[in-house]
């Protein structure tokens, strides 16, 4: 052993003695993620086996890529994948711009009480569980609910929103907007308040009206925030809102509403197709992982910031 390594070892040891408390503090967290986050990853092997829950992982035979082949030759899976992308895209298209617009409008409000009250109201739905939200909307959109009551003179029979394949995705997007748009304004509002007021003063002197001010000052100044949020959002495209879908969907609309998460739940656990479900899950995780990493790289390139 050279003297250098000896000194390094001594330094390490002294370092540890001096700072052991830190490592002790880290211990519970590390134990937790080792057991409950990393260990399950080992369970991914069952995607390569014909797993039987009563025989256990070790006793179940290897089948290589059989399940993955099954996934890619399953027509329904592609439907599910399509649904996931479509629903996510609709959601982004519809609910991404809204918080920005609302934030800009809110910022223009001079009456502080009004502003605060509106904010309190619109932030609220974010804190409700999807079960509650579903509870609220199922009554409103039901056959005897208020929406059908209002539409009654114009239609021959009540619209069954939840059973209608052509309307269901819109319900998903709409309720998602109701729940999250308000909360989404916070980030943009914060960014807007950070804009130098002198910019506005200069614009007013130049004769710019409100509209021009918004277009030429407000929006450009928060562009970096917008881009950041957008890229972040893209990374989660495969999520499509699992908690929401599983609460709101029913067998009539599986065809249009089944997303990867719900499909894995139903077939993987519900049909005891554990191996298949895990294979789908792996596909999902890998793609999501790639998306988020690329999202982050784009972020770094575009704005020099990293998500973490």
């Amino acid at each position, binding site marked *: 052993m050279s003297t250098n390594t000896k000194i390094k070892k001594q330094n390490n040891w002294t370092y540890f003695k001096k700072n052991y*408390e830190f490592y*002790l*503090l880290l*211990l*519970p967290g590390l*134990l*937790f993620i080792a*057991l409950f986050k990393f260990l399950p990853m080992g369970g991914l092997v069952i995607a390569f086996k014909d797993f*039987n*829950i*009563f*025989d256990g992982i070790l006793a179940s035979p290897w089948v290589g890529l059989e399940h993955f082949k099954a996934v890619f030759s399953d027509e329904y899976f592609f439907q599910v994948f399509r649904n996931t992308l479509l629903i996510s895209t609709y959601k982004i298209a519809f609910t991404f711009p809204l918080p920005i617009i609302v934030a800009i409008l809110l910022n223009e409000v001079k009456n502080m009480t009004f502003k605060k009250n509106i904010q309190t109201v619109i932030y609220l739905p974010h804190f409700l569980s999807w079960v509650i939200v579903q509870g609220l909307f199922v009554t409103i959109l039901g056959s005897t609910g208020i929406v059908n009551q209002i539409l009654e003179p114009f239609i*021959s*029979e009540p619209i069954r929103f939840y059973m209608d394949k052509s309307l269901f995705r819109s319900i998903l997007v709409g309720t998602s907007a109701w729940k999250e748009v308000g909360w989404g304004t916070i980030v943009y509002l914060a960014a807007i308040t950070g804009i130098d007021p002198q910019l506005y003063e200069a614009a007013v002197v130049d004769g710019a009206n409100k509209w021009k001010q918004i277009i030429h000052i407000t929006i450009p100044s928060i562009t970096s925030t917008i881009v950041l949020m957008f890229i972040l959002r893209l990374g989660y495209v495969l999520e499509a809102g699992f908690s929401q879908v599983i609460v709101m969907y*029913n067998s009539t609309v599986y065809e249009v509403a089944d997303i990867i998460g719900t499909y894995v*739940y*139903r077939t993987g*656990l*519900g*049909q*005891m197709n554990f191996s298949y479900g895990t294979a789908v899950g792996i596909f999902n995780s890998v793609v999501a992982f790639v998306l988020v990493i690329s999202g982050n790289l784009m972020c770094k390139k575009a704005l020099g910031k990293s998500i973490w």
Partner: protein
Amino acid sequence: MKFKKSMKRMVSMLAVLSLSATMFVGCGSDTKGNDDNSKTENNETKKEEKVTLKHLGAFSEFDPNTDPVAEALKEKTGYDVEYFMLPAENAIEKLSLEISGGTSYDSIKMNSPEYNLLTAQGALMPLDDLIDQYGPNIKKAIGEDSWNAAKVDGKIYGIPEKNSADNINLSIGVREDVLAELGLEVPKTIDEFYNALKTIKEETDMIPLALSSDYIFIPTIQSAFGIETNWKEIDGNLVSKVEQPGFKDYVDFMVKLYEEGLIDPDMPVNNKGNSMEKFTNGTAAMKVMAWWDAPKAIPALEENVPGAKVAYIQPLIGKDGQQGIMKDRGISWYTAIPKTAKNAEEAIKWIDAKFAEDTFKYFTIGEEGVHHTVQDGKYFPVLPTFFDERNRSSWYLSGIDETNYPIYWAARVRKDENMSNAYDEFMKAQSVASFEPLGFAPALEDLAKYEKSLATLVNDSVLNFIAGEGNTEGFDEFVQKWNTSGGQASTQAANGWYNTSK
């Protein structure tokens, strides 16, 4: 000062260590549950002590633990049973989770898809030996065909519960008084039927036949085209309804009826509810009816249209004398015991006790004179006692006494005069009725896989022929599509089983 500091260190360290310890608290311990894995040894020696059995059944809107039937069973069998139910929605998923989680139910009553899932996973106990040893009554009550239907790889994993009775469920109700006014009799042949509809259209402003888009396959009419069941044996092989020779003719006939305005033009947007309404408020002259529709429909009709009378059309006879209709036969439920059950032996004994002749009668239709009366070998309910105390007994069945139950069960039909009447009328077609050949087949994978989507395809396509295109020019194309969308696979699967079971 230094002393205090090291004390503080100690306390902090302990806090962190104990937090790490909470990680392990979770492992292997049950803070809010009671997991008694150690009881198995004791059970063997305490044969006299009756354990509390746990039974899981399908969803139904009542509390199985407080129902009078539960009490009646306890009284006669002496067993204490705790009853559980699956949820109304996603029951099969809940069941899967329970099974995967190592459930300790002693018996589970499940439907066909659930039975197939669990046998495929190897989650159920083979019952052959248990039944041989402890189930003499069970063996007596259930016939061989039923047992065969429950076999998987030669072993029985669930006690099969056959349908209650070989019922003929559907017919067409027709306004006899209207026919009389027009000088017509209740139609027996397809031509008489067509003629009646035409006359009604020309001579009255009633809708001849009320119909909804979810009921376009009418057994009474299909009968005249040789279509009775979903699968039929032709030259030794099973052929699906879609490919049976009379099917196109049936569709052509329905197209003709619709084009000539003999079927309610609103058919595509009607549902069962409003098409029934049209019949009961006197707008329509004929309507597809199930015998269980009678108790509500007939009184409503009589109230809205005084003097109205309803007759039921027997399966119509075709141009070449074809006539036939389906009667129920199949296994409705399987009662199985999961491998992880703690009291398998006791469970079989309990089920066996339920099949003891007097017990079986007692919990299904009660006591003579109290719950039911007997007249000419037919059972009639004593109202309201019969329904207050024995209405839910079917939920508690673990199989039926195949000889006696159909007779007992009929008491339920007799509760209402209109229903009893309709039922008897429908059953007159017994002589020309046939069973679904796949009635006793285990759920075949390919069949189950395509069943729903094919049914939708057929329904939507035929609906389109009738109300959309107005002709059947695209029929061959439709059959082709049916084949490629799983129809061919289904046919192969059906025949695969059929050939081995002959």
